[in-house]
């Protein structure tokens, strides 16, 4: 399946717009967009499991936190350099997803949701329990010396934005390639009709496990990058809220679309940002958005657009 011109132009265009945006946005919004780009990588990973393969997980915070701590702990305790630490985070996310998948994928549907939820909760509690090693719920600050890559200080605005953009671009292009590859088609087949794909000779367990590990790698990379770029590692990122946010981004933007996670993250981030200016109860927005989406727009924004005409949207 080769990439046709229109989708490629759309995605490269988005990257170009984001590149240009850093010169126009004021500092506050530039930092927000860097956050959004990293969170969209997380959501893209979630989308690979949920949107394409049909695995509705409630435990992705575990993989995000695995990446974050996998990056942060070696720096904090062993004084690792940033690049190996980031790779450690990436690997930690994927490995944990594989481990959870080996057990959780023996179940499906509602059981799968609860099993992933429970594993994530156990992971979060373990972070609190081992507070002498992990900093507990206070977390820890990533040493600023360990936030320098190739002479660029990632704690300053422009390098941080560029690092987030590079990560986002790579993640999106890989995602685009993945979902249009033969394996991506098999993932969708699992979502649509597992029995039929089994009959065609595919091994559903293996396909779903691979998809979950890829999803975990995305989440782990996003977690590691988030900790590195914003300099803080903490147990809050392992709470259930961080499993629900990527789900919300994906549902809002459109499950099973490549740009959907970014669009959802962008809109939801600013919706929460604006709401928190008016009330402390800003998470109300999250709840209301979930209910409204699931009731009235289960396909999300891009899913609906795709249905109404733009059939080529990947």
């Amino acid at each position: 399946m080769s990439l046709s011109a229109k989708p490629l132009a759309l995605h490269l265009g988005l990257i170009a717009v984001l590149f240009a945006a850093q010169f126009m946005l004021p500092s506050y919004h530039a930092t927000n967009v860097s956050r959004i780009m990293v969170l969209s990588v997380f959501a893209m990973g979630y989308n690979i499991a949920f949107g394409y393969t049909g695995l509705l997980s409630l435990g992705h915070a575990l993989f995000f936190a695995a990446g974050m701590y996998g990056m942060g702990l070696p720096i904090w305790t062993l004084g690792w350099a940033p690049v190996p630490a980031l790779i450690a985070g990436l690997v930690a996310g994927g490995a944990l997803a594989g481990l959870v998948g080996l057990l959780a994928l023996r179940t499906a549907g509602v059981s799968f949701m609860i099993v992933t939820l429970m594993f994530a909760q156990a992971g979060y509690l373990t972070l609190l329990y081992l507070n002498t090693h992990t900093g507990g719920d206070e977390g820890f600050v990533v040493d600023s010396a360990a936030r320098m890559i190739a002479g660029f200080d990632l704690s300053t605005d422009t390098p941080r934005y560029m690092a987030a953009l590079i990560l986002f671009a790579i993640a999106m292009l890989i995602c685009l390639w993945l979902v249009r590859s033969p394996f991506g088609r098999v993932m969708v087949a699992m979502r649509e009709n597992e029995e039929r794909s089994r009959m065609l000779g595919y091994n559903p367990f293996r396909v779903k496990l691979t998809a979950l590990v890829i999803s975990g790698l995305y989440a782990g990379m996003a977690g590691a990058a988030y900790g590195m770029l914003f300099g803080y590692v903490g147990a809050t990122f392992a709470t259930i809220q961080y499993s629900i946010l990527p789900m919300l981004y994906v549902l809002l933007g459109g499950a099973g679309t490549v740009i959907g996670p970014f669009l959802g993250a962008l809109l939801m981030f600013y919706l929460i940002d604006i709401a928190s200016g008016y009330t402390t109860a800003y998470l109300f927005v999250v709840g209301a958005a979930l209910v409204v989406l699931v009731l009235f727009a289960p396909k999300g924004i891009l899913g609906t657009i795709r249905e109404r005409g733009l059939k080529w949207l990947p």
Partner: protein
Amino acid sequence: MAFGPFLFLALLEGTVMAAVLALTAIGLSLVFGVMRVVNVAHGEFFMLGAVTAWFVTHYLPFPPAIGWLAALLIAPLVVGAIAWLADVFVLKRLKYDPEATIVATIGLLYILQQTALTFYGPDARPVEPPFNLRLQFPWFGYSGYKLFVVLAAGLILLGVWAFMTRTKAGLVMRATQVDMETARAFGINVDRVYAGTFALGAALAAAAAVLIVPIQQAHYLMGHDPLLLSFIVVIIGGLGSLRGTLVAALIIGLSDGVISMFFSPTLAKIIATLLVALVLVFRPQGLFGAKT
């Protein structure tokens, strides 16, 4: 204190917890059993029960005992009504699709929790117990109210059992659980059974909260732990099985009491959550799989 009395205290605390947990979890179990809906907002119904109890005891000019009794009546009614509305306006429209309802009840969780934050505020507030009685054991004194909680929870559970097995409404609910299509064919208003079941499940959580609130204070985030523990209990006991839920509540409540006392509450929760995950993975048929 020697090991023996210490263990006794742990078991007492565990029993109180088990009683409240059983009441909360029965609500969750009932909803799953009859409607096949996993209600993630169940903990928030618990929280709303406690918050309503605070409002009732704070604003009605009664002495503590009567105020508390009023709360025990009013809170389940109010919370039940909210749940009824949630069923009619959200769950029913989703046609009770399992995954969609989970997402919707997560949304409901935030909506209820944040509404409580708006109108009730971020503070934890105490509710005065209906009576103060201290039981003096040879080694330590213990709150008589806590033992009353166990008794009251037991009575309410007995009431639920009688309702399910001895009344027409209970029969209709059980019929709907066994076969919704046939129940409808026999002229049962399934929509109303569903709404009623959802309201009853929420009301039971609210009642449990009113029992516990003189011990534990009302707070807008208090729904988290009861939700998690109810999930654990309901899954280990077998979703939809009321007897299994009771047994599991006793096991989890007591072991939580003991492990929390001798090791740490966090460790107790880690063990319980992992246990649930493993039960679901290795005994899925026996627990979720009661196909109707």
